[in-house]
């Protein structure tokens, strides 16, 4: 599956851009968006910033939400079934998918 991920580091980038990542997963793997982001961070690009500290991973804290295909969802509970565009929840971007 293919994931278009919003990237922006205000310290070096003039404007945001989207980076594409291909992951070798299918619907049957039952990945959540958090699993996808972790897989990108672990195996492709460890400079990606997404909510990673104090993660409950079971839909409790509500802090990991991102826009998935335009709709705000909790990354840790939203099930991945197709290619996705992943963006920050609001436009107050600190870096990549992290907002204040």
């Amino acid at each position, binding site marked *: 599956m293919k994931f278009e991920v919003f990237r922006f580091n205000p310290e070096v980038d003039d404007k945001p851009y989207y980076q594409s990542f291909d992951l070798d997963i299918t619907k049957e793997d039952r990945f959540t968006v958090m699993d996808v982001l972790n897989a990108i*961070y*672990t195996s492709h690009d*460890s*400079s990606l*910033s*997404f909510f990673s500290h104090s993660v409950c991973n*079971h839909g409790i804290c509500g802090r990991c939400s991102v826009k998935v295909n335009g709709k705000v969802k909790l990354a840790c509970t939203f*099930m991945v079934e197709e290619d996705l565009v992943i963006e920050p929840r609001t436009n107050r971007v*600190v870096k990549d998918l992290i907002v204040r």
Partner: protein
Amino acid sequence: MLLAKQIAGFLSKTGKDDLYKVEKGVLVKVLLNKVVNTEVLAIGGGGAGVTAAIGAARKGAQVTLVSKGKVGNSGNTIMIGGSYAMDGHSAYYKFGIKEADKELTKDILFNQIVRDSFYLSEQDIVEQFVEESPDIIYEVKQWADQAGQKFIFRKPATWNMSGNAMGKALQHGLKQEDVEIIEDVIIVDLLKDGDKVCGAVGIDIYSGEIIQFNAKAVVMGTGGYQPFTLKNTNSDMTGDGVAMAFRAGAQLADMEFLLYLVTCLEPNEVKGSILPVFFVFNPNFKYRVTDANGDEIVIPKELKEIEVKSELGKLIELYYYGKCVLEGRGTEDDGVYFDFSDMSEDEIDDMFEDLIKSFLTEVYKDGFYHGDDVRAYKEFCKKHKRVKIGLGNEYTHGGIVINEKMESSIEGLYAAGECSSGAFGSNRVADAVVEMLVQGIRAGKSAAEYSKNKEVNPCNKMAQEIAKETLRYFENKKGISAVEANLEIERISDKGLSFFRTEEGLDQAIAEYQQLEEKMNNMVLKSKSRLYNYEWIQAIQAKNRLLCAKLSAIMAKERKESRGMHLRADYPLVDDDNFLIRHIAELRNGVINLSTKKPKVTKLEIPKGGKTEYIDYILNNEMGLENISYEEER
């Protein structure tokens, strides 16, 4: 000087004046971006840190509470899954709760905690737990009521609640006190003025700014550590507080005792949930436990009875499922199967619906356990007729050595909750939830009393050194990444530190931890930006996680017996002749110093010696606290 002024002006215009400054005409990097002055610094946003802040504020101290996440919405507190309990006698007579079982007295609770600890509890700490817990339990229940959170009473004197509700209750209690709150800041190390702790240095995770905290006393409420691949805790559980206390010279104990709970291995989206714990306790839940081949893992009837009704279920599951995995009969990810193949689809439906309706909907939205969809899990079980269950490390008994006032072995440092040690010896019964609250409030009070009339010198030089070391990661050119370091910690721990340990396995784990430690002196970061650089935060956490795992393996090697949550394949007997002792580790001149200590006896004499089969020990020592009733009647 003109040039310096120009540079200063330029920096100010570009917004970089917080990173560089002009000193004596030379441009220097600013290492510390901010200074916070306080009297009592409480570290940790869960129940221990919050109650410590409240306890200290009530004693009139100026208090700052700093948390890696959001206060009341981070750490293992929100993972409570969960209940907390006091003795029924206090509930009935002191708080007028007529449904409580008044026969369950403080003495019974005390004796049960000590016996279930395999007599390694520090009895003065257990006394503090039993004596002081009813008040704080009742007060937190009132905060929950005021905040509109559901805490549902069950016999003997227990409240069923979600971690989310506990977090909200704590936030409500904290709101009523004058406490400065600083969130999303990870503390990196403690500051010391001679032998006294005098603050800490932390990083704002979002901005990357480095903050110096000057304090007269510090309370750790930072939780435990979890070194394995399978995770059922919050991702914060990296032993930060335990590791930094150790580096500051504090004694640690009981690090070999890691608590395991039945944990989902599949389907992927609920991996790490401790939902199966409810299968064990729910009287209507039927399943057979099998190995990877489908052969049943037989637990003798007398133990099965203990498993379903008392907190010793954890030990029994660890022993029997662990043994299956040890013998190579487990799944490829060290699990077993809960098998429903004897049941019809309707029966499986009824069973899950009963669990949802009779218990889970009390505190979670219909069909859910936390944010996990129990009905989707049920459908998975119906389709496959069996589901993989692992043993996940949920709690650490070991940590900072404290006394009944929550003082650590070094001046100015206090510890409460999971990062401390001593209450539960080798096997925790009763509640970690109560431990964090009752120790937190006491630690806060003790720290505030100590702080009165204390003068502390700001440790600026040490703060500079810590900041410099923290920023060194950005300059490293070659080395392993934090991701690689964590995967390696997990690989070594899964292999050598997991359930059923051996001398050979532990020797290898210790050697591998040491090799990794050297490699981790030079961890590299892909992004050189300080803005929400999780790789940087993870590098700092990985060092703490590794230190805790290494000390755990070292103590596990020393303990050549099986006791509580420490099982040795090569030393299967409980050895009271030689091991009714706690292992203590302390850093002296940069070298790990090991010693032993007998637990303090205040009321319950420790039985005289002998070597006993592990299972016989459980059956013959009046063990098994019955802390919550899952029956229909309330």
